[in-house]
C-alpha cells in the first residue's frame, strides 16, 4: 500500500507573467533587440532631461527681463507678447469682439446637435456673417482694417474661410470629374490636376501679384482677400480628390437605385450618394483640413502676419531682441496641439466606421 503524501502547490513559474516577463518579452527578447532598447534609452537620455530642464526647471517664468539669471527658456517673453501672438495688431480695447465670435461659435457647436434642420441651416449661414461683422466692424461697430488682423486670430480666420469656402467648390469639382459629360469632366480634371501639380506658394504669388491684373482698374482687392482666394482655390482641388475617393467607394447599385426611383441628378446626389460618400470621406477630409491648417503658415511669405510671422515681428522690438527660440517653440506647441487633436479626432471616426475583425 503506497503512502501518498500531499505535495504543496508549486509557486507560479517566474517570468511568464508580471512586469519582469513583460520586460523580457518586449525589451530584451534577443541580443539585437536588447541593443536597440539600450540605444533607445540612450536617445531618450540625451534628449529628454536637457529639454525638460530648458523648458521647465531652468526656465524663467516670472519677473522682468533684467532679472533673468537662469539658463533655460525665458517664457516671460511669451507672457509679455502673448496678446500679439494671439491677436496681432488688433486694437487692444476691441479684443472682446473676436472673443465674442469665438464664444458664439462654441455656443453654436453645442446647440448644433440639438436643433432641427431649419435652425441648423440658420446657424451655418448666420455664423460667418456674425463673425465677419464682429471681427471687421460695421453696423455701428468700429471698423478694423485687415492689415491689423494677425496672430492666431488671422491663422484661424484663414483656415476656417479656406475650409468652408473650398468645401462646396470641391464637391462640385468632384462631381464634375465623375460626370459622364466629357467637356465638364475634362475641365474638372484640368483644374484639379493643375492645382495639385503646383506648390501653394506659386498660387499665392499668383493670387497676390497676377490676380489684380485680371480685373478692371479700380476694383481693388484686399491683400488678405487675395490670399484667401488663392488658398480656397488650392484647397478645393484637394477636397475634390478626397470626395471623389468617397464617390468611387459607393456601390454602383446605389446610383442605379437612385435612378430607378426616378430622382433627378441633383436629388439623387444630394439625397442618396453624397450623404454616404461624405460620411466615409470624413477621416480623409479631416486629414486635408490638417494639411490646410499647416499650410496657412505660407501666407507670411506674401506679407501677412499670421502667428508664425509674429515670432519675427515680436523680436523686432528693441527691448526684446533674441527671443526667437522661445517664440518658435511656443508657436510649435500651438500648431502641434491643434493638429494632433484633429488627427486623433479623424482616427476615432475611422475606428468607429471600421467594423472589420482585427
Amino acid at each position, binding site marked *: 500500500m503506497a503512502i501518498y503524501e500531499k505535495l504543496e502547490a508549486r509557486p507560479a513559474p517566474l517570468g511568464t507573467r508580471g512586469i519582469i516577463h513583460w520586460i523580457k518579452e*518586449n*525589451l530584451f*527578447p534577443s541580443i539585437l*533587440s536588447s541593443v*536597440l*532598447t539600450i540605444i*533607445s*534609452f540612450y*536617445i*531618450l537620455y540625451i534628449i529628454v532631461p536637457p529639454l525638460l530642464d530648458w523648458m521647465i526647471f531652468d526656465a524663467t517664468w516670472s519677473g522682468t527681463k533684467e532679472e533673468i539669471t537662469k539658463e533655460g527658456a525665458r517664457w516671460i517673453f511669451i507672457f509679455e507678447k502673448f496678446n500679439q501672438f494671439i491677436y496681432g495688431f488688433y486694437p487692444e480695447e476691441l479684443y472682446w469682439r473676436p472673443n465674442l465670435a469665438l464664444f458664439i461659435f462654441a455656443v453654436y457647436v453645442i446647440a448644433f446637435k440639438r436643433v432641427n434642420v431649419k435652425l441648423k441651416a440658420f446657424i451655418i449661414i448666420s455664423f460667418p456673417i456674425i463673425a465677419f461683422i464682429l471681427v471687421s466692424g460695421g453696423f455701428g461697430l468700429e471698423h478694423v482694417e485687415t492689415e491689423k488682423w494677425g496672430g492666431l486670430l488671422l491663422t484661424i480666420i484663414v483656415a476656417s474661410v479656406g475650409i468652408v469656402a473650398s468645401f462646396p467648390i470641391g464637391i462640385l469639382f468632384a462631381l464634375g470629374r465623375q460626370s*459622364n*459629360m*466629357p*467637356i*465638364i469632366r475634362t*475641365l474638372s480634371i484640368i483644374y484639379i490636376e*493643375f492645382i*495639385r*501639380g*503646383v*506648390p*501653394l*506658394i*506659386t498660387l499665392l*504669388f*499668383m493670387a497676390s*501679384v*497676377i490676380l*489684380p*491684373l*485680371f*480685373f*478692371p*482698374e479700380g476694383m481693388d482687392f484686399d491683400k488678405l482677400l487675395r490670399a484667401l482666394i488663392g488658398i480656397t482655390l488650392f484647397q478645393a482641388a484637394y477636397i475634390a480628390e478626397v470626395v471623389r475617393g468617397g464617390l468611387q467607394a459607393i456601390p454602383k447599385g446605389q446610383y442605379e437605385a437612385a435612378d430607378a426611383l426616378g430622382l433627378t441628378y441633383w436629388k439623387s446626389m444630394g439625397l442618396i450618394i453624397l450623404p454616404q460618400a461624405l460620411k466615409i470621406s470624413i477621416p480623409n477630409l479631416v486629414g486635408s483640413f*490638417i494639411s490646410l491648417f*499647416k*499650410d496657412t*503658415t*505660407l501666407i*507670411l*511669405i506674401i506679407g501677412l502676419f499670421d502667428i*508664425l510671422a509674429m*515670432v519675427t515681428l515680436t523680436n523686432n522690438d528693441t527691448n526684446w531682441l533674441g527671443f*526667437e*527660440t522661445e517664440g*518658435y517653440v511656443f*508657436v*510649435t506647441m500651438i*500648431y*502641434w496641439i491643434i*493638429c*494632433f487633436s484633429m*488627427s486623433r479626432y479623424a482616427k476615432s471616426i475611422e475606428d468607429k466606421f471600421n467594423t472589420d475583425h482585427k
Partner: protein
Amino acid sequence: MNKHKRAKQSGVAFYNNPDNRAIIYQILALVLIFFLAYFILNNMFTNIEKRGINTGFDFLGSEAGFGILQSLIQYDESNTHGKVFIVGLLNTILVSVIGIIFATIIGLLVGIGRLSKNFMVAKLSLIYVETFRNIPILLQILFWYNVVLASLPSPRQSISFFDSIFFNNRGLYIPKPILESGFTAVIIAFIIAIFSVIYLSKWAKNRHDKTGQEFPIFFVSLAILIGAPLLVFFISGNPASLEIAALKGFNFKGGWTLIPELLALAFALSIYTATYIAEAVRSGIEAVPKGQKEAASALGLKDHVILKKVVLPQALRVIIPPVINQYLNLIKNSSLATAIGYPELVTIFSGTSLNQVGQAIEIILMTMAVYLTLSILISILMNYINSRMQIKER
C-alpha cells in the same frame, strides 16, 4: 444611343431628353469659360499696357546683374535671367534629391520601427512620427535655420569630425574628392561590374528555375559592385585624393561647402516627409494579411524568403504609390526655401528676377510649368509602376 431612342419613342420633349440636356449644359459651360477668359485676358492686357509692363520672353536673354549664393554651374552677375532659371531649377533638383534620399532612409527605418516587437523602438518611432507630422513644414525650416544653425559656433570654433569635416554657422564643409587621370579605369571597372551583376542574376534565376538550387545573389552582387572598382583603384595606384577644407582667415576654403540654407531646407524636408513615408511603409506592411505569412511558413519557406517573395511584393504594391506622392510633395515643399533664401527656382527666379523684371505673369507661369512638368513626369512613372505591379488576375 438607347436612352435617346427611348426618349424619342415615349414622346419626351426635346429639352427634357437627358442627352440633349447634357449637350446644352456643356455648351453653356464652355461659353461661360470663354467669357471668363475673355474678360480676364482683356483686363490683363489693358492693365499691362497702362502700367507699362513688358510682355514676352525677351527678358530671359537680358543680364540678371545679381549674384547667387550657390550654383551648380558656372554663374556670375553678367549672366542672363535664362541662366538664373537654370541655376534655380538645378538647385531645386539638388535639394529635392538630397531630401528624397534621406526621407526614404529615415522613413523606411521608422516605418519598420513602428511595427517592431521591441516596445521602446515602436514607441520612439511613434513619437517621432506624431511630433514632426503635426508641425508645419515652414515652421520647421525656419526653426532649423534661425535657431539651430544660427546658434552653431563661428568658423574659428568649428565642430570638427576627424579633422576633415567641419561644421559651423557658415555651413558644413566636407572633403572634396579630386579625380586624377587614372580614375577612368575605376569607372570602367564599375560599369563592367554592373553588367556582370545583371548577367549573373539572370544566370542565377535560370539555374534556380531549372534545378531549384539557390545562389546568394545579393551578397555576391554587392561584393562585385564594391570590390571590383576598389581593386582597380588600388592597382592603378590611388588615382584620387581628398581636398580637405582649411581655415584661412575668417572662413574655410576648399572642399565642398554645404551652405546653411541648404542644410536647413534638406534637413527639414527629410524629417517632415519621412514621417509620411514611415506611415506609408507601416500601413503597407500591415496590409498584407497575416494568413499569407502563415501559409508561406506552413509551406516551409525560410523567414527571409517569406519576406522577399511573399510579404514585400504585396506590401510594395500598397507602399509605392503614396511614397511617390510624398516625393512629389517634397519637391513642391522645396519651394518654401524662399522663406530662408536658399537660391532655388522660386527664390531667385520668382523672387529676385521677378522683382527686377516685373513680368509677373511670364515668370510665375514658367515656374508653375516646371512643377507641373515634374508632377506629370512623376505621375506617368507612377502609372507605369502601378501597371507593372498590378496583380494579374485571370
